[in-house]
């Protein structure tokens, strides 16, 4: 086996693990070409910055959803929790409330975490399927939000607080870096380190891949799963803060479809529903794909109804591509390992001679 061949094989294996990047580039290129035909520069720095800025909101809920998908579960309660927590403490964030916005913000994230802990307890201690447990939570808390606020809308929020969603930091060329980008990047980095470079992350991946084996090797799987749901829902609470800051208002119907979007993002991002597989950076790619499609179709003036169709097709295609490439990667990795072994053996034989 020549050295060159090994290099090519490693490269191929590398490429096969980057399906999200491939999809992202393909979508960007497609819309760039389509828009070029209409005389619009889709890939201009300002347009890209708008897309990335929008995607950052989805990245946060996407990370939350990915954490539970990594456990082989699902969190349908995200949107409802966003609505409930922001409605519950929203009055404290009004312009003339006279309370420092940090207090309600902490309360919102904390109460979201509490709700997530509740889902986690139902799943682990009462053995309710994640799907049903979080569905019940979604129904109950969406209902409670409506009961609490009736038809009122909490409107006109503290300007300082709103900066977390609309603040602009600086411009690089035409690309303006905004607060949401910094926050999303911070979360991505934090969870990347947590999942890849800590003991805890190893435990999480192991529990997701095979809960029974994980349990028997001494991991407290119940605690891991409860932690995943708590963190996931806390992230939903944080996303709720950002959504409400962007809209400058909140109401019980906030984020009605967010749990779907979050699932879409993490599936396009390469997370497997069976659990234990996925890379947190994929979430960023998935979110950008979703918003590229939206922005691209808007600038082509295509009807919005087409969008859910294309999203649907894309989810199916992305997962198909992910599966195929993951299998291919496994095969190539095996081949590489075999080739390396052969080479070592050959070297050893030569030395022996």
């Amino acid at each position, binding site marked *: 086996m020549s050295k060159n061949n090994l290099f090519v094989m490693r490269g191929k294996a590398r490429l096969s693990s980057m399906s999200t990047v491939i999809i992202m580039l393909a979508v960007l290129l497609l819309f760039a070409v389509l828009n070029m035909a209409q005389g619009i520069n889709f890939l201009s720095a300002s347009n890209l910055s708008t897309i990335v800025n929008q995607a950052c909101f989805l990245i946060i809920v996407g990370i939350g959803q990915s954490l539970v998908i990594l456990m082989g579960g699902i969190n349908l309660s995200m949107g409802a929790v966003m609505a409930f927590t922001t409605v519950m403490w929203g009055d404290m964030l009004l312009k003339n409330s006279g309370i420092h916005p940090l207090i309600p913000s902490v309360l919102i994230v904390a109460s979201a975490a509490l709700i997530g802990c509740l889902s986690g307890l139902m799943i682990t201690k*009462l053995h309710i399927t994640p*799907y049903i447990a979080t*569905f019940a939570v979604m*129904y109950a808390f969406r*209902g409670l939000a409506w009961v609490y606020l009736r038809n009122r809308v909490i409107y006109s929020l503290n300007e300082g607080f709103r900066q977390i969603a609309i603040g602009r930091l600086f411009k690089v060329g035409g690309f303006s870096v905004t607060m949401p980008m910094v926050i999303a990047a911070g979360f991505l980095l934090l969870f990347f380190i947590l999942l890849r470079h800590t003991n805890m992350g190893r435990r999480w991946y192991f529990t997701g891949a095979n809960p029974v084996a994980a349990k028997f090797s001494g991991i407290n799987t119940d605690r891991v799963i409860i932690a995943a749901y708590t963190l996931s829902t806390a992230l939903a609470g944080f996303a709720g803060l950002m959504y409400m800051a962007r809209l400058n208002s909140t109401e019980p119907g906030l984020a009605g479809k967010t749990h779907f979007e979050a699932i879409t993002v993490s599936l396009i991002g390469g997370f497997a529903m*069976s659990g234990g597989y996925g890379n947190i950076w994929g979430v960023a790619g998935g979110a950008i794909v979703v918003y590229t499609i939206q922005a691209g179709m808007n600038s082509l003036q295509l009807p919005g*109804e087409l*969008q859910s*169709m294309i999203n649907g097709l894309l989810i199916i295609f992305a997962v198909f591509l992910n599966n195929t490439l993951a299998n291919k990667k496994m095969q190539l990795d095996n081949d590489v390992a075999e080739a390396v072994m052969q080479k070592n053996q050959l070297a050893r034989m030569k030395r022996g001679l």
Partner: protein
Amino acid sequence: MKHKMSLPSLRNLPTSTYVFLLVFVLASLLVPNFFSPGNIATLLTQACALMILSTAMSTSLMMGCIDLSLGGLVSMTGVIMAIFIRGGMNAWLAVALGLLAGMLFGLFNGVIVTRLKVPSFIATFGAGGIAQSIANILSDQRTVAWEASEHTTLISALGGNVFTIRFGDSAAMTLSFPVLLLLTVFIIACVLFIFKKTTLGSNVYALGANEETARLAGISPVRWKTGVFISSGLLAAITGMLLMVRTNSLQPMIGENLEFQAVVAAVLGGNSLKGGKGSIPGALLGALVLYVIRNAMSLWGIGTSVVMVVIGATLVVGMVINEAFQYLAEKRTARLQRG
């Protein structure tokens, strides 16, 4: 001896029976007018759509798949039928075309799941979005209505009553038995008959419990899975038709979230999302639980937002009751085996 004989039959009841009885008795005792012939008939008619959908959902779940495209399919097939009828086509033909569209879409689901090996949760989740957006595009997001005339006799016939019995003067005491309910009962009976009396039932359970073993035993996963997806497409199209007949028009978002309610009904009825477990009657009772709550609460004059909270709570309580009964049954089996 007799005592021992009666135990298994009791244990064979779907676990949702207890939840259903609990909810039903509570509603009858607490809510005036709930336990009246008129209201029970209304309740059953309202539950028709969800009952058929949860039948379809529970067959997919037993097979270890999930069909999240049902809601979108209901909208899509309903819109197709309604548009053809509005265009002046004979209602028989329009309904037939709608059913065909449902089956074709089911085939599409089946091919993606079995040939492209995309997990059914994702494949049908995406497909549901596609179906819903087809419905929106075809109908231009407006309610599709038509003028009743000669070509719609089928629709008006289906919308009528089989018989009406008066127990008293008030509306609550009038029992009218709608054709739709009869049709639903007939369809569910057909599905149950096919499931119990042909190899379909056992093959579906076998596939759900362990696909590889089933394949080695000569059950083709590709063929049976595709078949079940086609049949759930057909059942979704029938649901679309029912909803269209009931309102005499069709609103394109009608199927939204129906698939989630169907999953909830099926799981309340003892189906597991992992497959190989559960029953169709259980799912039907699960669907009825949801509608009993909704109906009783609205008779009581409670707002829909509170109803949402109550349904969420019932779901948790119901699952805990299911779990408890299962635990007891397992313990009892273990004891019988030991002694």
